[in-house]
């Protein structure tokens, strides 16, 4: 029986740098468990002759030539950024003081 524990949700939250309170963890663990259970039902109808698949279309080798195509200007790229400085994306502190 697949499922997800409260501890696993807390671990995922830490990896995603999400701060979740005790109540939120309870709430989300229950919800995610329901979602995983619902998705797992797909496995019940998959017979032995249906291999696990990551892509629904039988396509391979979709490639493009190595040719430069116009992208965004720096102004366009930064237009949606919450903060920018020196034509760069500005992000909050990543790590605290070294332990």
């Amino acid at each position: 029986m697949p499922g997800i524990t409260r501890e696993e949700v807390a671990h995922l939250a830490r990896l995603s740098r999400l701060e979740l309170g005790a109540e939120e963890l309870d709430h989300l663990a229950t919800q995610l468990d329901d979602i995983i259970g619902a998705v797992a039902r797909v496995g019940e109808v998959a017979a032995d002759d249906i291999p696990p698949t990551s892509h629904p279309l039988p396509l391979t080798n979709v490639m493009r030539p190595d040719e430069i195509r116009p992208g965004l200007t720096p102004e366009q790229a930064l237009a949606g950024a919450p903060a920018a400085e020196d034509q760069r994306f500005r992000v909050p502190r990543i790590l605290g003081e070294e332990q």
Partner: protein
Amino acid sequence: MSSTTDLMSYEDALASFDPVMGLEVHVELGTNTKMFCGCSTEFGGEPNSQVCPTCLGLPGALPVVNRTAVESAIRIGLALNCDIAEWCRFARKNYFYPDMPKNFQTSQYDEPIAFGGYLDVEVQGKTYRVGIERAHMEEDTGKSTHVGGATGRIHGADYSLLDYNRCGIPLIEIVTKPIEGAGELAPEIAKAYVAELRDLIKALGVSEARMELGQMRCDANLSLRPHGREKFGTRSETKNVNSLRSVERAIRFEIQRHATVLSEGGTIVQETRHFHEDDGTTTSGRVKEEAEDYRYFPEPDLVPVAPSREWVEELRATLPEKPSARRKRLQAEWGVSDFDMQSVVNAGAVDAIVDTVAAGADSDAARKWWLGELARNANERGVEVTALPITPAQVARVAALVKAGELNDKLARQVIEGVLAGEGDPDAVVEKRGLKVVSDEGALGTAIDEAIAAQAGAVAKIQAGNLGPVGALIGAVMKATRGQADAARVRELILEKLGVS
């Protein structure tokens, strides 16, 4: 910082322990565009001027694989004697860090494009076979600048600035199998492997593989086990070791550090470590995240890559001569000893000499200048010989002037000095500095007469059949002509005048 004062000696470490290495080398491909979008990979552009919705991870953008990058990956795999996957996928490697705006790196996980190969390297005249576990395709990250805090480092910085121009540039990661049985040669084998791999990548023409520009970067894993034990010890991973010399130093330091910890009864923490160029030590980075924390899963936005066997064979036919075979061929062509050839390789001067010979110099002269004057100069400047501001054609011109007797070695060195100083081509330097061998026999004759008159004792000995003191006379003539005479000719003339020729 870790202290080095109480570090066990390298010899003692090897007496007790057997090192096992694993090397991960990232090569930035020299394609025109990124791995999954058409943005330029040109180095040095304005910040965030080579970005698009795909490499910025904006909603709705879809990646498409660069065909040339796949070809390069296959060619690298083939050159490393790997099998090429008949079918493989990309995967998302999830991690939360702003150098990747998508919050995942598109990589390959359990289905690399190339696997199960080897690369032979030569160390101290012996061939050592390094097993290749895999070579897979992935993408580079953006460049972070950390602002505030004490030292511009990430720890304690107030905030960081991101330039995503590099984000998405194709990378090939080449991973060795555990390198066992290297013993005390471990640091040298690691260095030789990275050097051989770099030469191979350059020969393939898929990247310039310049380590100083970050086009090729090495992560060095090391563990120790007591002699006779099969099970590997806990490893450390030293990140971004970015020169051949650093690879050797980092492995050597880690061997000593591990041995010190282990012999004091301590345990090695599995972690990443940072290498410090200045003192050759490493310090603790972060505790290594477990692979499962990356939550790899197949990339749904990219369809599988399934290289046909015809395509693979077409690419195999494009492989260049192996660098090791090429070196053997050149050694035979130049007629030099193993030792001399090794000096050329160690100086990084193989290509420079080949190009100088192609420009008309004979190989002895080309070798002499690149390994002598130019290697010394490069060493003083702390750069590779090939980075010196002189071209093989210019070196060939200097050699031609020497051969024609218009320059002697001393003058030739001055010409090279002038070229390196930006004074122009060899002929321009000769002209500007007035560097010509004095071949006017009249002027030489006067200088020789003066030398003979001034050194009666030497002359007597020479005339008595002892040719030893001729050097003193030649020296005097060379001094009088400010080095601009042809020493061999001066000797001839002196002996002629003294009637002993």
